[in-house]
């Protein structure tokens, strides 16, 4: 199956995510994190932005050819229940490395989540490896 890779600078449309208590609880429960603030659904665990699934245009690859290389989240403040975060994902970098089984393409995307006043809350950086 052919892969459609994005271009550097390609950017998603802004998408608004409403952070719900129930979603925080379920996320913490799946991780097995008993922290009372998570179980009450008040504050989101640090990896919660993985639920903000924003597609970058022009990036279509069979899931069986994709590996998750790495991930980073940097916070200006914790994410809380009731937050409405406007998220945008942009392609920051694309490079090719030779692996044991042939070339691998690394697609690095960055995510910005901003609150209603436009203040940055979380910045993410994700590396997807396409085989």
């Amino acid at each position, binding site marked *: 199956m052919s892969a459609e890779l994005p271009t550097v600078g390609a950017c998603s449309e802004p998408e608004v995510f409403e952070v719900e208590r129930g979603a925080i609880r379920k996320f913490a429960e*799946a991780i097995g994190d008993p922290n009372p603030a998570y179980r009450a659904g008040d504050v989101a665990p640090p990896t919660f932005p*993985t639920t903000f699934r924003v597609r970058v245009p022009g990036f279509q690859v069979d*899931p069986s050819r994709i590996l998750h290389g790495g991930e980073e989240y940097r916070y200006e403040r914790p994410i809380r229940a009731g937050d409405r975060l406007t998220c945008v994902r942009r392609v920051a970098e694309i490079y090719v490395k030779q692996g044991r089984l042939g070339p691998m393409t690394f697609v690095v995307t960055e995510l910005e989540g901003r609150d209603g006043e436009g203040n940055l809350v979380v910045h993410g950086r994700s590396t997807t490896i396409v085989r």
Partner: protein
Amino acid sequence: MLPKNLKPGDESPSLVKEPVHKVQLLKYAGASGDYNLIHTDVETARSAGLDDVIAHGMLSMGFLGQLLTELAGVENVRRVQVRFSAMVHLGDVLTCKGVVKQITSLPDDRTLVLLDVWAENQKGEKVTTGEGEIYVRQGP
């Protein structure tokens, strides 16, 4: 929690997680929205050349997030960054650890503590490695 008078080289307490279970992967798929069937469907996993489903890399990162919040509190995690270097299989027991790398005093009464963090399996293989940054309040 972290002891007072932190210095580079200090080790965090270890966080030992329950063995990775199929139901946990189903829950994580639902909670995270990552429905890649390699994590939940054995046929898909086998057609990819694996013996059975493998855990989401992000689950192990979630464990490291738990390590950092247990050290610093939910309000005080500044950054978490990882690289996924090995697969996590069903039944694997992951232990999360951290070592203080750098301590920076901030203009307020806090310090920013940079740690190397990683999750290793029961064989001692590091499966997920990276860094965390947490705020630690100084003084009384």
